[in-house]
């Protein structure tokens, strides 16, 4: 079977309210041959405004905390509605933000301070539409008090907790006694099941209320 020819270039946008961060990463990711960083902006609105209708964007790398007071869930939703996949970047200090992102269906959550190799790998995968499993993401999900709502199978739980403990795919595979490709399958399933968590009929209202309850305040400008 022939694989479909890869696009020669994935169009990627960076959304971060700290200019030096956005630029720094833009420079880094531009070193990848198949990645083209087409925009560095500080908010989702700015990005969506700047896109021409029908213009294709493969991936948005989204900082989980932005200064415009927007909420993670709504940011991710808006991007995905526009047909853009989302890879979340985080400083790694707030598990709840990561959960919100995961529930909205990001491809993964990656810590900004990861090594270059890890970052490049993550962006490459995400640009191609593959989920990215990271320790932070797994720990955030594993620590979610509402995780039971996702209905994960015992195997899926095991894989998730191994990732959460810090293992990578090879170690996870060997501990769980399965092949690496199976591990990746499980991750895909965990990811899509987790989108179900906390999503009753009034999804957005609930998340909003939850965010308010939890005191997640929008980041003010200063």
């Amino acid at each position, binding site marked *: 079977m022939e694989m479909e020819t890869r696009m020669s270039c994935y169009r990627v946008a960076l959304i971060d309210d*700290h*200019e*030096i*961060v956005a*630029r*720094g*990463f833009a*420079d*880094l990711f531009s070193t990848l041959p198949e990645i083209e960083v087409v925009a560095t902006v*500080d*908010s989702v*609105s*700015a990005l969506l*405004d700047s896109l021409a209708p029908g213009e294709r964007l493969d991936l948005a790398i989204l900082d989980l*905390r932005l*200064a*415009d*007071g*927007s909420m993670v869930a709504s940011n991710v939703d808006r991007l995905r509605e526009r047909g853009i996949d989302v890879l979340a970047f985080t*400083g*790694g*200090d*707030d*598990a709840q933000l990561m959960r919100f992102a995961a529930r909205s269906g990001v491809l993964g959550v990656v810590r*900004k*301070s990861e*090594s270059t190799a890890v970052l490049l790998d993550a962006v490459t995968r995400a640009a191609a539409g593959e989920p990215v499993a990271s*320790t*932070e993401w797994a*720990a955030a999900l*594993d*620590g979610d*008090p509402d995780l039971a709502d996702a209905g994960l199978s015992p195997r899926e739980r095991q894989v998730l907790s191994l990732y*959460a*403990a*810090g*293992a*990578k795919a*090879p*170690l996870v595979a*060997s*501990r769980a006694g399965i092949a690496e490709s199976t591990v990746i399958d499980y991750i895909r399933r965990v990811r899509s099941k987790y989108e179900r968590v906390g999503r009753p009929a009034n999804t957005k209202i609930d998340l909003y209320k939850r965010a308010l309850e*939890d*005191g*997640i*305040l*929008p*980041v*003010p*400008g*200063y």
Partner: protein
Amino acid sequence: MNSGESALTVTTAPTDVAASAATPSIASVTSTEASDSVARTLYLAIGISGVMFGALVYGAMRLQSYPPMPWLSPALWTLLVGLLASLGILARWAPHRVLRIIAVTAGLVQLATILLWLVIGEGRLPADAGIPWATTFTGVPAVALAAAVNSRVAWAYAILVCSLGALLRADTTSYHHPILIGLQDGLYSFLLVGVFVGLVLATKESAVRRDETMRAARRESAERAGRLARRRERLLINALVHDSVLSTLLMAGLGRTSADAVALHARRTTNLLNSLAVRESSTPITAGELETRLRETAVKLQPGIDFVVHEGEPAPSIPREAAEALVDAVAEAVRNSALHAGRGRGGAVSRSIALERSAAGVSVIVADDGVGFNAAEVPAQRLGIAQSMVGRMQRVAGGSATVWSAPGHGTKITLSWSPPDLSQDSRAPIAGYSFAGIRLVTRRAVRGALLLFVAAHALLAFGDRDPRGPLVLEIAAVLAVSAAAVLVTSPAPYPLPRRTTVQALALCAVTATLQLFQVTPDSALPFAQWHLGAITLILLVLVAQRRIGWAWIGYAVLLGAMIGWAVANGLTPGDGVDMVIRHAGTLVAGSLFVLGLRRSAATLETINSERTQRAIEEATTAASLRERASELARVNSRARSLLDRLAGLRVGEARPGESEPGAHAQAPSDDLKPVRTALRAECLLVEASLRDSIRGRSLSIEPVITAAHRARARGVDVTLIDDGDDGSDARNIGVVATSVAIANELERMQGGRLTARILPSGRPEFATIVVESTEQRMLTVDAAGSVREL
């Protein structure tokens, strides 16, 4: 950071200890509002009753003077009445100690009077003034004493004074069965005094309990408010500070950005840290002060601006932070309007500021009729100034901001602050407090009182009776009144159900009617009218059961009946009144007390909610400040000096030897020079350790801190995650064991990565450690602290 000692020393993270320390003792200051209020009400009622009874016994007192020292009786009478009256007068203002002393003195004077009389008094009293005036008085000083001292002393006194009174009565009566009289008097007095003293003590007890409940509730509210404030503050600081600091350090460390950009960012970050620094004084600002400041600000920016104040109910005072945020935000709004509203418009723009104050908080509306803008179209961040306005208000607890605008219709910005919401607080209901005292009288005590009631009145009725009256009717009368007593003391809701009330009153009427057949005016029996006292007691209990109106109607009927009876039997109406009037005293005293309590209950409610509100505000402010201070301290201690250095970077820093700040023009590529290597490494290390302290929480202790630092310097990737529950002591064992294990592993690693994670509670294991270097290993730590390799 400790410069690594050889032994692995473990220290617990200080931050959460401080945060979880009990809220300051504001809420736990001893509050005795209810007890104080009850006492004062009592004293007032006692004072009035004392004067009343004084008037009642005045006549008898004049007739019962002591010949060798004719001034003695009036003197004692004056002293007693004076003390009681002063109690009533001073009830509102005097300190409690003073009131207590007066009350106790009155009790002692009463005792002394009776004793004196016993000792030096001689002879019998004339039949028409046969009751020693001192014993008529007995009830009031006893109640005064009961209000002032504890229950044991109160009861001892009551027993003593009634016994002595009985003795005195026996001693002085001109009746032919003195012992019987004494006994009857003693028993009846004790019944009456006992009921009063019992009710007073029970009310005091309920007041004490209410104070305790209120105190506990207030403490709980304050603690909860403190917790919420701490959490909010933590999230707020996280959002602002960590993000900023971490990204500055990371970008400086990664070396992908120019020194200039890093310096700029670092400077913004340190400015932010400075602006968040906790201020010492945070006294609240009154609504009036706020108005003044707003007016000043507005006038300074826009001299002609319209400033309107709408005032509702008294506005609460506003925390300083909120007030300052409000004033700043209003200033921004006005400036913004001055800049943009007039654009493209021919005519002048009219602007206004409206300040609304009410119990629900304050809000300021800055409006203009300028060009406006389509708020939906303009992306939020491009509102710029509007954004920081909104942010400023949202940073403050209870603050909010909304922006409304439409093209051609001007702009309206609403900035408001409201005090924390009390509605979810459990306000221990004191609505039913009015005479909760009776509820605290145990069934056993009630039964005892009933027994005493029946016994006393039986004794009064049959101990010595006029044989002319039909016995059977007298028995019926005693039964009827006893039944009434049982009815009014039955466990029932407040107020006593109307049906029960009417039934009791009917029984009293029966009793009175039956007794009409017994008593003739020439009957010399001292207790022939025993039913009057009995009925009065019943009415008194009705008053206690919040049927004051009914009780007084009953009394009025009784009065009327006695007058009728007197007239029918050839006496004057005055004689009829005479017989019943002394009982009025009892009823008045009881009614006064109940009414007084009812009024104080409403005040107590207000006092309580005010105090609770204040406790919550104080707890919120204190907790916020403490939390912010400790978070900032942590960030500052770890990262500040580094940030300052980054902020001070100039282009020249990049390459040693280039010291001219304005060196741009020389070599364009200099601008892009990254930060020096050693500095970069330090930035990365500090970023990581700061992240550890946030995400790794309790793992951020020695020996981990040092081991991680050293390992990272060697190139090891270290990740610490704490997903466990907050602050339970049982965690300590696990935490210590895990951190020792982490440090051990790290010391051995030359590269690779280590991830340690404390699991959420409820898992079979406490923590996991994954080591990936030359080999791949996984360790688990259980709650007891033993480390296993999987």
